[in-house]
């Protein structure tokens, strides 16, 4: 059977990269990234110049740019935390986003071949998801796989895929306590699978190697208030992950996890991480039951409506946990307002069928 080649989508996809140091890692990705437009979000000191390797087509935003573009709404974008990357999602004009950390490199598959992570993400996003019934052979749309015996035919068309969550070889994405106990553990297991996370199931979404359909779920990809001036860090992608999963489940959209792998090279300092995550470790015990039981009304048929409703529920139910959540709920609204201002044509697009 002839394999269909994956479309490049070079005019429909932006690569969003947050950085505070340099972009040397792009050299390794050049063969895969060069055709694409990059959106660099420079965190930290705006007076510093970040050199972008020659030959890439990019736009770069530092804190001054963010403040200029968003004005008073700029306070919803985190400072001194990679959460600032979501500004890139907002200003992009493309249908798809791929975001990657600047310490992530090209990984090799078991045969020794370089993995084109971007191509795999595109494959994941362009093929349907199957959240309503678990397929034991994982992604049925992959070459060589299919739906297993017992899988109802009425569910085999699947639903549109909103998010593709990739994984990491080498330094695994552990929290600080686990890092402290196992500083030498490396992820060497290449699991050759892509699977849809079932409806009703939450997961810890890592922003290191992530792609999504901006038109389907973009407004919900807010990475929260983290970093300087905030009581918490390293929970930006987690927060977005819980929000998008509740909304995707409500709107009948799919979230995939698994391939592609990238090679994560830098192990962050576990003591610094512990300081950042400390509150999160306690708070997540409350936050997760909150998201697990969050119900969105039928009337919420767009992502923005769902997100505004979630923000209201965060304010109602999580503020008592800590005043931080009151601020966060406000920031969620600010984000949606800013999103709609910068993306006017998208503002009232209905997305999928709300349950």
């Amino acid at each position, binding site marked *: 059977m002839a394999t269909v080649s994956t479309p490049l989508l070079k005019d429909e996809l932006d690569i969003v990269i947050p950085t505070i140091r340099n972009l040397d890692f792009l050299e390794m990705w050049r063969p895969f990234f060069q055709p694409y437009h990059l959106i660099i979000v420079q965190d930290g000191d705006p007076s510093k110049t970040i050199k972008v390797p020659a030959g890439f087509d990019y736009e770069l935003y530092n804190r001054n740019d963010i403040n200029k573009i968003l004005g008073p709404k700029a306070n919803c974008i985190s400072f001194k935390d990679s959460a600032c990357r979501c500004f890139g999602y907002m200003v992009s004009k493309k249908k798809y986003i791929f975001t990657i950390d600047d310490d992530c490199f090209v990984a090799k598959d078991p045969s020794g071949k370089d993995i084109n992570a971007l191509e795999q993400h595109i494959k994941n996003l362009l093929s349907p998801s199957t959240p309503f*019934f678990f397929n034991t052979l994982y992604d049925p749309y992959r070459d*060589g796989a299919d739906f297993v015996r017992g899988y109802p035919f009425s569910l085999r068309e699947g639903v549109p895929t909103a998010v593709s969550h990739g994984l990491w070889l080498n330094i695994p994405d*552990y929290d600080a306590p686990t890092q402290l106990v196992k500083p030498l553990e490396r992820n060497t297991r290449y699991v050759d699978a892509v699977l849809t*996370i079932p409806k009703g199931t939450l997961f810890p979404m890592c922003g290191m190697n992530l792609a999504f359909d901006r038109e389907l779920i973009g407004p919900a990809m807010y990475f929260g208030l983290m970093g300087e001036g905030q009581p918490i860090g390293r929970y930006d992608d987690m927060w977005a992950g819980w929000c998008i999963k509740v909304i995707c489940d409500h709107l009948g959209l799919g979230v995939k996890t698994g391939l592609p792998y990238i090679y994560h090279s830098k192990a962050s300092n576990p003591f610094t991480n512990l300081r950042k995550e400390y509150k999160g470790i306690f708070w997540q015990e409350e936050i997760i039951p909150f998201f697990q039981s969050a119900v969105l009304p039928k009337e919420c048929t767009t992502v923005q409506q769902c997100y505004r409703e979630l923000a209201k529920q965060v304010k109602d139910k999580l503020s008592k946990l800590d005043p931080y959540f009151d601020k966060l709920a406000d920031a969620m609204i600010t984000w949606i307002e800013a999103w709609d201002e910068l993306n006017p044509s998208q503002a009232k697009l209905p997305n999928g069928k709300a349950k």
Partner: protein
Amino acid sequence: MATVDGRNKCTGKLKFILSYTINKQILFQGMSVPRTLRAGKLNEKILQLFIATGKDEVLSFIRELNIHPVITPVLPTQMAQFSVKDEDVDIVIGAVQSDLTSFMNAWKPIISRFHLIIVKDPDLKEDLKVPEGFDVNIYTKADMDQVAGSALTSQLFSGFSCRYFGYLISKKKYVISIDDDCLPAKDDKGFQVDAVAQHLFNLAAPATPLFFNTLYDPYRKGADFVRGYPFSMREGVTCALSCGLWLNLADLDAPTQALKPEQRNSRYVDAVLTIPAKALMPMSGINIGFNREVLGPALFPGLKLAGEGKFRWETMEDVFGGMCAKVICDHLKIGVKTGLPYVWRQERGDAVQSLKKEWEGVKLMEEVIPFFQNVKLPVEAVTAEDCLVEISKQIKEKLGPLNDVFGQAADAMIQWVNLWRKAGSSSS
């Protein structure tokens, strides 16, 4: 001792420390909460006991005291090796073909140290051929008739379902069952897969159905819970069922296999994962292991298709039973895993022929899934048996009218539970 990929494992362990303010003293039913509090004995377990009384006075008192569980995560501690004793395991083989020589010899290095239960399909006319060198008990139609009567034997135990008789009479804690047309597989590095050891590891290590771990099974060597995984959920729950996969001939339905006659599964996916709570999946009975003590009769021979034959394409009993089992596991807060181990499934049968004959099973699935997604089990159902009886009632009520096959399945489930209770009471 079957040491199965065991090693000391770091995992989060959680201590609940309750903080409270005392501003009232109330005595009820001889239990004094303030005395318990003062003695420093109010911990989470005791709090749950108080709550479980359901007594209004207790509940309002707890509310007034403003008791909040405060979670203090402790640094991860070393966990014991996940190992299972050989004598706790039965390997049940349903013989739908008479000559088991090559099958058993192929599996010998892996299964010879365990006790085997071989159950011969009551419809099979030829004598069974079983090689020497195994600790095995063989059961035939005569044995089944003695336990269940010949009418019930033919209703419950013919064809692939003969293995359920093995589940019924086993006395062990763990049961592993593999179709008799499967051989040991090789992994992606070319090493032979010890499917039994992998199933036992899956069953001995906890399952994690409450939250999805993106690095799959956190108890495997070289893996752990990822950032963002709540610490209170890291102890996991008992794993009741381990569903393995197949290389070569995957477990596809007849239409799919007929459409892609050359397709073979060659992808070795090196993962075990817990199927999340509330998610349903089609359980394939070809390669499974389960905790018989905890799952009891939850795996049952219920759904029999009209044209059911001797090929897997023509059965649905495992898929149907597996969904019941998953609903029961979710209710009882125990887990189901899927993934490794792989077995090598040999060519047998012709998908196109099976397709011509009957693919009623495929159509039935359309009704079945919405039903299982909406099953609610009462809080009083605390054993797998209770749950099964309740589900059979609902099947009769809601699915029965749609197709006779479901009404029959509901009846079969009750017969099965009765048999199970009888076998249980005579085993000690």
